[in-house]
């Protein structure tokens, strides 16, 4: 019986891995951009299954929320903006610039060099990986030993928000910088927003509260089970993207300054709590055991809101413009 389970597991893993590699090849080398994007969406789905097989349900959740929802929407929106830009460019210069990039692939010799380099790279990486011991506990034991001092019982959340809090703090910084940079580059492109049909409108009306609920659930579950601020924030962002796509006008409904406050909230709360801890005699980002759980939850709530709003703001493709019709 055990042998049958093993064989079935191997069959599943082998199939999964082959599918992933084949999909990646189609994503990267297919001739049509739209096709590549659809393959990339499928690639994200299969990646989430790979995370499940690697017993990383926290990562699978993050990959599911981002890969299934956000990345696809981001790329599809970018593709339509590219097409719109192409139309404008063609209208400006009707004849001289009809080149759509067909001649831009390097010729054969150069490609051969790059194939050889990539193969060499793969060989080196594979040799390094195969030389590693087949079993290694890593930091599993240390995390398990110190879990009781972290304030939460999900080891991944403990690592993210307590043991390696710096990583997460800097990550919030990266998110903040990304949105600042995107907003300084360009105003959000004006896109024709047709009113949603009755089916889409009622679908969004039913689904968006459920998405909010699910984000809250994932945030709450993160302290003791797979979940947490990143997964919750991504679900929140997906809800916002769905609203934007269905024609809800976020800028009109939401004045500028609260939006900016929420964008900086995660980073701000994280740093503020760290500084307060220093004031009362601890180290930066060190949480006293008695209220470590509460502090982590507070940071996570702020981080969830910020991540959700930041990713949705990035989906806009630039800083929101004031409605000048009024």
């Amino acid at each position, binding site marked *: 019986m055990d042998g*049958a389970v093993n*064989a*079935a597991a191997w069959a599943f893993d082998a199939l999964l891995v082959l599918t992933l590699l084949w999909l990646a090849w189609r994503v990267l080398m297919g001739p049509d951009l739209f096709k590549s994007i659809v393959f990339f969406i499928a690639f994200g789905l299969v990646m*989430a299954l790979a995370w499940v097989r690697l017993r990383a349900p926290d990562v699978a959740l993050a990959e599911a929320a981002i890969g299934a929802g956000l990345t696809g929407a981001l790329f599809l929106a970018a593709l*339509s903006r590219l097409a719109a830009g192409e139309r404008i460019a063609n209208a400006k210069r009707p004849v001289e610039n009809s080149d759509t990039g067909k001649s831009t692939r390097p010729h054969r010799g150069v490609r051969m060099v790059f194939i050889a380099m990539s193969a060499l790279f793969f060989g080196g990486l594979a040799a390094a990986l195969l030389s590693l011991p087949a079993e290694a506990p890593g930091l599993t034991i240390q995390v398990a030993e110190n879990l009781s001092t972290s304030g939460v019982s999900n080891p991944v959340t403990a690592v993210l928000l307590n043991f390696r809090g710096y990583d997460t703090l800097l990550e919030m910084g990266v998110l903040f910088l990304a949105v600042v940079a995107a907003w300084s580059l360009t105003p959000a492109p004006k896109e024709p927003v047709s009113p949603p049909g009755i089916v889409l409108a009622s679908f969004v009306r039913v689904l968006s509260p*459920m998405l909010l609920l699910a984000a809250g659930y994932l945030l709450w579950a993160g302290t003791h089970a797979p979940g947490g601020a990143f997964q919750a924030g991504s679900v929140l962002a997906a809800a916002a993207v769905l609203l934007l*796509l269905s024609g809800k006008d976020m800028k009109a409904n939401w004045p500028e300054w609260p939006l900016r406050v929420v964008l900086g909230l995660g980073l701000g709360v994280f740093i503020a709590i760290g500084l307060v801890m220093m004031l009362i005699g601890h180290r930066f980002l060190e949480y006293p055991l008695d209220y470590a759980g509460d502090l982590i939850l507070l940071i996570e709530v702020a981080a969830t809101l910020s991540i959700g709003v930041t990713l949705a703001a990035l989906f806009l493709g630039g800083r929101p413009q004031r409605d000048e019709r009024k």
Partner: protein
Amino acid sequence: MTAFYLGLASFLLLNLAAGMWRILRGPSEADRMLAAQLFGTTAVAILLLLAEAMGQPALRDVSLVFALLAAVTVVAFVRRAWRPATEEHSNDA
């Protein structure tokens, strides 16, 4: 039972891989999107089977997230990326 669940999950994965032919062939962009939508549902079913086979009930939350977000890409496609039939994508390299 575990072997049965895993075998069934492999079968569904094989189904998913076969469905990729539709993304390759098209012919219209909607056809390709449809295949992606079927993949989403298949992935939900695979996740439910794996949750049972691997004894990890937390995996049901992953399929819950998939189910919640199943429509986002289709809505993005219909509302943004789907152009009128007359226009063709430039077959860029």
